[in-house]
């Protein structure tokens, strides 16, 4: 078999050496980690950045005048600039650090939506959203007596754009859709979605939790108004994420949380809020993880997103072919544009049973509804098994998965 490295220009074996966890054995077998859509593993540079921060320049940022505080502040703000360039935002002020994509979506729901929604206004989401991009909007719609509309999906797992166009009206105030689906892998045509929404004057939020690690993100080119992603899914630490917002919109929104950092002046009569982006970063932020996020993004950039994309496409294509040849296996989500996620069911077998037996063979996949219950309801299944691939995965590992599945199916038959 041809090696992946030879085809895609990505030296996967060299990449793998950066991820110490990949040396782990489970049940006497080499770990095969295919749960990357849940969280990616961390390269040594990210682990080192965390240790280095706490070992050498841990300090609270922005206020201190001592050397450590200056170094910590500089590192924290360097990540902001790296993120700005990574997603092609106009300025660092448009980058707000959060705990993750979920918090980014909630921030917009709590501030922008609460300020701008009137009774009868409409928010549009799609039927393939993660619960994180459903529940915050349901909550704000209930409070503001606004209406949540849902764009249906097709049997291939693609957004039905015709229905979307019909749902749009002057009542539409916000459209929030996932850039790439975590349970189906579908890459949505976000530029079309955004252009259509802007035509009726609605703002658009993109849930970039899955897409950021796989695709080139260009918020300027897509013209989205908000974009949220999580650090831990882009080879960075848990507990840090990013919300991008267009400057003029962020400036018009009320703050999310009150506290230190987000203020300019406080008296008991009146508080003057700080400038962007600090207005939305109340309290001492997650400094260490934010600092290490820069190392993750630098690592991704160095490996080359184009190389990674080609490699992951190869893996997706190979896995799709391998899995489809298994008797009784159905792939859920067959969109024409997909990130490297393969969700599937096997006839008469509960996904959880497959997950347990794969785990015993050292193969980590995710089973269940993947926090997208409406998607499972649409396909009338209790859940799927999901294998999701990262830059360090190989075709050999997909062979291991296929063999593991054959074995599990035989045991369960």
């Amino acid at each position, binding site marked *: 078999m041809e090696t992946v490295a030879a085809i895609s220009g990505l030296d996967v074996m060299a990449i793998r050496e950066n991820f110490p966890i990949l040396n782990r054995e489970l049940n006497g077998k080499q770990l095969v980690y295919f749960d990357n859509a849940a969280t990616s593993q961390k390269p040594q540079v990210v682990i080192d950045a965390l240790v280095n921060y706490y070992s050498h320049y841990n300090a609270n940022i922005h206020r201190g005048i001592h050397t450590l505080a200056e170094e910590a502040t500089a590192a924290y703000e360097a990540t902001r600039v790296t993120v700005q360039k990574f997603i092609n935002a106009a300025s660092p002020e448009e980058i707000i650090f959060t705990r993750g994509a979920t918090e980014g979506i909630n921030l917009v729901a709590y501030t922008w939506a609460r300020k701008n929604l009137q009774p009868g206004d409409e928010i549009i989401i799609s039927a393939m959203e993660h619960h994180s991009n459903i529940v915050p909007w349901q909550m704000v719609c209930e409070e503001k007596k606004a209406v949540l509309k849902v764009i249906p999906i097709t049997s291939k797992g693609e957004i039905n754009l015709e229905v979307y166009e019909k749902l749009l009206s002057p009542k539409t105030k916000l459209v929030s859709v996932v850039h790439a689906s975590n349970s189906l892998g579908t890459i949505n045509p976000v530029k079309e979605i955004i252009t259509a929404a802007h035509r009726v004057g609605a703002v658009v939020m993109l849930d970039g939790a899955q897409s950021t690690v796989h695709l080139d993100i260009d918020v300027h080119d897509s013209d989205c108004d908000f974009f949220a992603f999580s650090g831990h899914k882009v080879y960075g630490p848990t507990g840090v994420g990013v919300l991008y917002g267009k400057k003029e919109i962020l400036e018009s929104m009320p703050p999310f949380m009150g506290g230190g950092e987000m203020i300019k002046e406080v008296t008991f009569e009146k508080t003057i809020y700080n400038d962007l982006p600090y207005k939305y970063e109340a309290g001492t932020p997650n400094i260490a993880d934010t600092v290490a996020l820069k190392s993750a993004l630098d690592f991704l950039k160095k490996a080359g997103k184009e190389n990674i994309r080609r490699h992951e496409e190869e893996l997706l294509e190979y896995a799709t072919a391998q899995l489809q040849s298994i008797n009784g296996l159905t792939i859920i989500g067959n969109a024409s544009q997909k990130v490297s996620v393969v969700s599937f069911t096997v006839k008469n077998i509960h996904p959880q*049973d497959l997950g347990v037996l794969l785990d015993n063979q050292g193969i980590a996949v995710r089973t269940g*509804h993947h926090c997208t219950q409406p998607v499972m309801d649409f396909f009338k299944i*209790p859940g799927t098994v999901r294998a999701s691939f990262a830059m360090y995965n190989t075709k050999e590992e997909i062979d291991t998965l296929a063999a593991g599945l054959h074995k599990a199916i035989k045991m369960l038959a």
Partner: protein
Amino acid sequence: MGENKTIRETEEEIIDSFSLFDTWEEKYEYIIDLGKQLAPLDEKYKKPENIIKGCQSTVWLVAENCDGKIFYKADSDAVIVKGLISMLVKVLSGHAPDEILDAKLDFIREIGMMNHLAQTRSNGLLAMIKQMKNYALAYKSIKETEKSI
């Protein structure tokens, strides 16, 4: 079912069966077999109030009181969980509420299946044990109320 054996004796029987297995495959094949052999629960019992909802698989549990002893019936849509609940039903059925409430159920750890208990959110197994004990507690208090009347 268990009339003459104590809960611990049934547990020990299960531990003995598992001690014959050398590999994880044998262990799981046995559990899968138990799951398949467990008679499916009559559809009339598959009501929402009998569901113990896990995040991924569903467990149905019903209990009957017969001459001061409790008998359980259970089912699941996932076969490994079904095998595990089949063992729990075997161990606890036919015993008095106090015996069930006192049962430590160490056999789960001793056969190396603790990881399934840890997955509380996904398979509802821990919730099922709790519910089995709740039934015992409920029957116990009914009995004590009857006595006091």
